[in-house]
């Protein structure tokens, strides 16, 4: 137990901070994923074949290629791409991008592909008559989405989004390969310096279980809230 003490003697405070980092990366990635989904879900549902194709390419590639490979692409390619853009504006110094941002972005793109599918399914399962009713009642497109589609979509999407959240949370462990100090990386460091990998990796597993358990409880509450009236 001394291994987990807070302060200089143990790894408790380091692991605590690492857990916060995991939570921060997961939430950032999830939000980035939502913004991707906000762009690609309308494309998926669009009447134009070409727009459908773009959205399908995105979701197919992301769901068919390992997360680790995507992370390597961003880790090795990220600063190169930004430097290329910067050089077009005449800035030629070396730019190093933040591991937190690269990691969240890589995981965010992955979680965005799953969220897109979830939102698409949720919108498609809303009864068609509702759209027609809204039109008849003279709702504007914006009001129709905000007042009619969104509340129903959220109710239908939350159970599946909780799966996406679990996947995203677990995927953040892969960012440890880029050196960002989250649970996995911190356990790796601690295991290396104490030569007790069994303890620290098992403890990491417990932390992840705790995170998934607590977040499931919170999401269940949301689910209840959004299912009022059903």
């Amino acid at each position, binding site marked *: 137990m001394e291994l987990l003490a807070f302060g200089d003697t143990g790894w408790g405070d380091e692991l605590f901070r690492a857990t916060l980092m995991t939570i921060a990366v997961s939430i950032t990635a999830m939000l980035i994923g939502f913004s991707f989904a906000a762009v690609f879900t309308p494309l998926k549902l669009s009447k134009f074949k070409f727009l459908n194709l773009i959205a399908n390419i995105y979701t*197919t*590639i992301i*769901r*068919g*290629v*390992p*997360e*680790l*490979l995507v992370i*390597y*692409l961003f880790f*090795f*390619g990220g600063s*190169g791409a930004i430097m290329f853009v910067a050089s077009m504006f005449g800035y030629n110094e070396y730019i190093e991008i933040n591991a937190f941002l690269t990691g969240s972005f890589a995981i965010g793109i992955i979680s965005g592909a799953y969220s897109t599918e979830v939102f698409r399914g949720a919108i498609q399962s809303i009864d068609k008559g509702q759209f027609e009713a809204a039109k008849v009642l003279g709702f504007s497109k914006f009001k129709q989405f905000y007042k009619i589609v969104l509340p129903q979509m959220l109710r239908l999407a939350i159970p599946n989004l909780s799966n996406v959240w*679990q996947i995203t949370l*677990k*995927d953040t*462990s*892969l960012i*440890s*390969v880029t050196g960002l100090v989250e649970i*996995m990386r911190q*356990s*790796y460091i601690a*295991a290396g310096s104490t*030569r*007790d*990998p*069994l303890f620290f*990796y*098992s403890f*990491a*597993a417990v932390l*992840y*279980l705790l995170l*998934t*358990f607590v977040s499931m409880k919170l999401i269940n509450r949301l689910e209840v809230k959004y299912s009022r009236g059903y």
Partner: protein
Amino acid sequence: MDFELMINSFPKLLNAAVVTLKLLSVSLIVGLFIGLLFAILRLNKNIFINKFAYGYSYIFRGTPLLVQIFIIYFGLGQIESLRSSFLWVILKEPYWCAIIAFALNTGAYTSEILRSAFQTIKPGIIEAGKSLGISNKIIFYKVQIPIAIRQSLPAYGNEIILMLKGTSLASTVTLMDLTGVAKYIISTTFKPIEVFIVAGGIYLFMTFIIHNVIKFLEKKYSY
């Protein structure tokens, strides 16, 4: 775009894809047995056996695969009695450690898939078998298992694809699978986009094949 690099790295990546496929197939076969075993345990009426099987699947589904590999590869070597036992021959090899982790992981997901498939079998079918005087054992092997397999095909197809992506984690324990070789080429040439296109293309091709095989099987066994 460095097309020369893409062409040169293609055979190397293709060779590495063989390692990926080996990892995938061995862990899927072992995982299927584990999954079937735990699905049956989950349906057991004894609450301890039931809870044990539930705990297994909860732990393996609630933690990242990376943690599981690291516990098995780095962690188990720490136990002295294990190091002196015959198991050490297997556990010192990263290849077998990766397979054990993958098999246990996919076993947990498979057990959930099979359990829900078993539960959707209509009791009438089993009762019909009983009233025809067929023994429970034969009903299980000849009626329940085939129906459960058919029911679980779509979900199991997804699981195979998830596992294909999961095998990329073998590269974190020094194995040179498709992702491992891709990472090596990226870090020596600093051309991530080109290598990503080739390696990603190979992965997508494998996903495509798996997807279509499952679709074919679904059609063949539909009723």
